[in-house]
């Protein structure tokens, strides 16, 4: 074959589709709009949290889009003059414990439905899913009665025990999908190797499901962290409230909105979730896009 003369043209087949103007128009511009829409509320929240009060409503002398003399007054007020630290602590405890409870229950439920193949397994799966479809805005009334009767009203336990009602169905379905992607032969192989059901679950299935467990955990954690209706209904005293409820009920006095403190509270309250996501984003993505590979 004849030698082809080397060229300094680095173009590859379809390069003409990728001219710079075209890329800006089809890729970067829509992406920029998207990012702007997504991030603007956070920006607004962040600048409001550090804006002195006199700038908040004075649009004539100060631009609403940035801060001239940033201050930590709102945050100091929030941390030292309100019960915000207690709300934070409550939210952390409630979210962590209810997520843990939901994960344990979901692992067992999902594994049993997916792999033990008992009579009615499919039906059980379906019922669990139906339970997820009932909206909390309907469920909170009967649940409130139960919470009252059991005597855990206005305590962390009220939330820790009610959050799993929506966390478990969700996590169970997510994990069922994940367990289904684990090849059956692995479990049979383990069975022949002498493992018991429990050992198969703990030594084979769970280690392989770590990405699934992490994304179920993140979901559950975020859902409980942001939960509003139950927290609003089942908690009455200020020191037992969670962040979403506390910020709204304690920092809005009548028709006076303490915007600075409100936004500081929202900002601080969203940080833990952001940190959690950024740690596990790889696992999270892999569990959404890929199954167990040998």
């Amino acid at each position, binding site marked *: 074959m004849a030698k082809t003369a080397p060229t300094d043209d680095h173009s590859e087949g379809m390069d003409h589709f990728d001219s710079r103007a075209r890329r800006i128009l089809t890729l970067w511009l829509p992406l920029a709009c998207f990012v702007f829409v997504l991030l603007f509320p956070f920006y607004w929240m962040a600048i409001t949290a550090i804006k002195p009060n006199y700038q908040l409503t004075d649009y004539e002398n100060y631009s609403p889009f940035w801060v001239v003399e940033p201050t930590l007054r709102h945050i100091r007020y929030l941390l030292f003059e309100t019960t915000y630290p207690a709300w934070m602590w409550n939210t952390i405890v409630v979210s962590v414990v209810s997520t843990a409870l939901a994960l344990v229950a979901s692992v067992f439920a999902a594994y049993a439905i997916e792999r033990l193949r008992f009579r009615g397994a499919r039906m059980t799966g379906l019922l669990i899913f139906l339970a997820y479809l009932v909206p909390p805005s309907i469920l909170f009334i009967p649940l409130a009665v139960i919470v009252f009767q059991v005597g855990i009203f206005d305590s962390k336990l009220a939330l820790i025990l009610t959050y799993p009602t929506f966390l478990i169905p969700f996590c169970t379905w997510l994990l069922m999908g994940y367990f289904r992607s684990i090849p059956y032969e*692995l479990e049979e192989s383990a069975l*022949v190797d002498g493992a018991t059901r429990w050992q198969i679950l703990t030594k084979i299935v769970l280690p392989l499901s770590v990405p699934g467990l992490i994304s179920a955990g993140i979901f559950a954690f975020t859902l409980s962290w942001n939960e509003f209706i139950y927290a609003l209904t089942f908690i009455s005293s200020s020191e037992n409230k969670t962040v979403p409820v506390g910020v709204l009920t304690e920092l809005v006095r009548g028709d006076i909105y303490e915007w600075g403190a409100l936004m500081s509270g929202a900002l601080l309250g969203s940080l833990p979730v952001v940190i959690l996501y950024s740690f596990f984003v790889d696992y999270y993505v892999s569990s959404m896009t890929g199954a*167990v*590979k*040998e």
Partner: protein
Amino acid sequence: MASVTIDGLRKSYGATEVLHGVDVDIAEGEFVVLVGPSGCGKSTLLRMLAGLEHISGGEVRIGDRVVNHLPPKDRDIAMVFQNYALYPHLTVAENMGFSLKLSGVRKAQIAEKVRPAAEILGLAHLLDRYPRQLSGGQRQRVAMGRAIVRDPQVFLFDEPLSNLDAKLRVSMRAEIKNLHQRLKTTTVYVTHDQIEAMTMADKIVVMHDGIVEQIGAPLDLYDRPANLFVAGFIGSPAMNFLNGVFGPDGVTLADGTVLPVTDAGAAKAGQQVVYGLRPESMALGGDVPLTVEVTEPTGAETYVVGQLGGAEVTGVFRTRVTAKPGEQIGIRIDPAGIHLFDAASGARLSH
């Protein structure tokens, strides 16, 4: 090491029976291959030996223990799966030592057992790798290593080579056979590939539609197939079947061609028979007319597809065939390659 006895084994899923009473005796140290087309029940049979499928009827004995109701872990068997079933989150060494770890063997001891097994299989330098970092052949070896380490009574292989490419399959075939000769562990091996069965087995069990068609040594099956199914299944290219009527001169085909028969066996004059003809038993230079349709030279041999007595036959010739399509050539037939079967029952008539 132990013998395995399968006695009247049945399996049904609901109302559908897929195994209709299978009897196989496997001697200590024997390499037995279960072969048959897909859906014949061979894998189900193996899984019943392993304890992964419930036994609907009959009995399985390993050694002199009836294992019908024992869970897999108490049967003292090791199984190699088609897709290897290596634990992706464990290293090669951990994979191989997994069963020992489960039974509470100490770490040092596990390492002592894993190392020689890895050396036998040429895996010693890969012990710290994960399955995803290995090639298909290496994974297959790890799966075998996992079985070897346990030193079980019986090895079970479920189509272990079907995920490998053709070349690797041939070399792994030799490797498994070699391994068996070394360890002498009783082995039951399932495949749909009759070449694998022929090359590896001490004894072949040909299965079809949930029953055993024939059990025997590879060459016995080739030389004396018990019925049409076995005759057509064993051997490649497959045996040619020609319908005809048996008479004193031989078998008369539909178009009047008479083919010679030396071993008529139980055939009676006037009986409808199937004349089985091994492709390899044809040679050039005889008086049986064959109209050539296609010639396929492979170098060492030439495959000829043609018309003989109104039916299509395939012949394998050691000599080169120069005939053009449409030409008629005369062939002679080696009597050893002729098998007569009853047309109605398919049973063998020749001795």
